[in-house]
């Protein structure tokens, strides 16, 4: 019976079906299953299966993202139960992510946020047009390991540098890793602003975050 529900949980993630994933999460709470087990033996198995299929070239980005969304929905459903039991899901690290001030381009940033969350990071997404002080404030509040900033325009990309300068000024730069992204971001830019890394796509962003935190 429990083996069956774990399999169904994994399958709901593989299918990218948030509704089924949420229903199964509720079912597991009702049957008094340990939510940590539901995550690790059920839902995470699905995420891993999709990830492996993607790596082989058998699955594609939409499947990966839908799996991520289903995972997020399942975990959110289990969250109150986790809190009630005083248990905590193990995370790979905390990430504060946003598109920088003056820039409203959201999708790349959101894709990275989803993939990070699906991979086991705790992600705080501040949306778009996020001022530097808001980003830094949130990073301090949640004790973030990584600050991730996106920009689509060369004129807003400079905000990435300003935030790093601000972190340095406040003596906070060593407390976290800073990663950047967006179409105009190049290796030269990353070096010149002293960021810890960048990626050209969401998959690479997850690999980068894992590498920076030595999380595997």
């Amino acid at each position, binding site marked *: 019976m429990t083996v069956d529900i774990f399999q169904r949980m994994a399958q709901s993630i593989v299918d990218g079906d948030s509704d089924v994933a949420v229903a199964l999460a509720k079912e597991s709470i009702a049957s008094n299953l340990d939510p940590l087990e539901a995550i690790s033996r059920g839902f995470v198995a699905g995420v891993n299966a999709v990830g492996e299929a993607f790596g082989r*070239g058998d699955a*594609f*980005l*939409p499947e990966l993202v839908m799996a991520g969304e289903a995972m997020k929905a399942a975990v959110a459903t289990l969250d109150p139960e986790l809190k009630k039991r005083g248990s905590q899901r193990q995370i790979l690290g905390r990430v504060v992510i946003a598109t920088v001030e003056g820039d*409203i*381009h959201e*999708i*790349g940033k959101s*894709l990275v946020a989803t993939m990070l969350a699906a991979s086991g990071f705790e992600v705080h997404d501040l949306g778009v047009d996020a001022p530097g002080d808001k980003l830094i404030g949130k990073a301090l509040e949640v004790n973030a390991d990584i600050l991730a900033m996106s920009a689509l*325009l*060369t*004129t807003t990309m*400079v905000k990435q540098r300003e935030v790093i300068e601000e972190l340095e000024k406040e003596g906070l730069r060593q407390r976290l890793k800073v990663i950047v992204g967006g*179409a*105009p971001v*190049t290796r*030269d*830019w990353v070096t010149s602003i002293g960021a810890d890394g960048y990626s*050209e*796509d*969401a*998959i690479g962003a997850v690999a980068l975050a894992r590498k920076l935190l030595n999380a595997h």
Partner: protein
Amino acid sequence: MSKSIKSITNPKLKLQVLNQEEVRKIHEATLWIIENVGVKFPSARALAIWQDAGAEVDLDRMIVKARPALIESALEHCPPAYTLAARDPVQDLPLDGNHVYLGTDGCGVEVIDVETRELRTSRLQDVRDIARIADAVEEIAFHWVPVSAQDTPVATRGLHEIAAIWESSTKHVQTESIYSPHEARAAIAMAGMIAGGSDQLRKRPVLSLMQCSASPLGHDGGSVDAALLAAEAGIPTGFMTMAACLTTGPATLAGNLAVGNAEVIAGTALLQLAYPGAPVFYAAAQTASDLRTGAYTGGGPEDFLFGGATNALADFYGIPLSMGSFATGAKEPNWQAGIDNSLSTFMASAAMSDMLLGVGFLHGSRVWSFAEMMMDCEIFAIVHKMMQGIAVDAETLALEAVAAAGPSGNFLTQKHTRRHMHDIFVPEFMDRRPYSEWESKKDDARDWALAKARKLLAEHQPEPLDDALSQEFGKLIRSMEVQ
């Protein structure tokens, strides 16, 4: 150097990707989207205009929903034809539906250095150099800001860029890199100085403005405010959708066209509500995101179909189209670049898109290559030739020459051949040499194209901009920098 501009006109080839019934369905879907889903306009000014016009405006979410009749009646004011003026009137570009003009692409962030061939960050001098080469070649009719002048201040960068182009070329400038009202005001002032006052600018717009929408179904506030200022000044203004299947648009091509169309049409209607009769154009560079990475692809069959389809939409609304073609995703000028840029340009040209964007980029409009720029011009020249089709008449059937040559004769000595030999296309960059000659040199199109770019840079002196104007531009830009 010749002042002539090579444009496609009076085409013999025709391409119909969408029939009238299909265009009507996309139009109806578009109106449904605008009325029921809405389009985001994060601009207080735009929202007020929509409210005054009777649209349903959610001020908190900045989303506008408008009835079909409101959109359709606003669009009726779009002028169907007008002219993009050049500093040199000989190079004016009538947008009359019977011309396809080629421009440079924009706005990249890196350049393969013309001398060292190394990849580096783009700067103002690149804008000048590219504009000067574009001034010299007849395939290029107008400029976009090709790369970002990243060595200039952010707040005035767009102004440094257009000043540099005007100082390097007499051809029309369409900027895609001015998207704030303060820069738009200054750019309009600069264009007015060239035209000789604001009334003259209305008659001879030497500048046009292109604003990207924020797909899906959104606009950038600064862009919208800049567009409104341009429309007020009579400067041709267009909204470009870059909706991408899978990410910022539906996976299906028709759905993606409808989403992008809703962005462009809502933006265009806004300009007509504010300034009825303002010259506007449709701009588009839809694509399909890469299925594995979600990345911008800059090519592939979906891109090519969008290139062929979009002019049917622009024609339906009776406005000119500025269409993204070229822009290969290839990392160097290679097989992929050849396929991407040839097919996208052929499709967009065969549909008679009024303006094509544009030459010069690798890696999906991010890396400028001078060699690619020259080779893209040749792609356009080939398409230009093809668009003329095959003339069939007594002279071209050549019966006299056939009779004179007779069986086993040859045509090289015929007078008819002398008359028509120059009808045959002569490529600059295609390798038709004997194998042994290639073997001894192992060079190819990329080397010859780069050599041509270097030669043009060394030799071509554009007609200079009046020094007093340059001074004025400098003063204006500096005054904004000290503020």
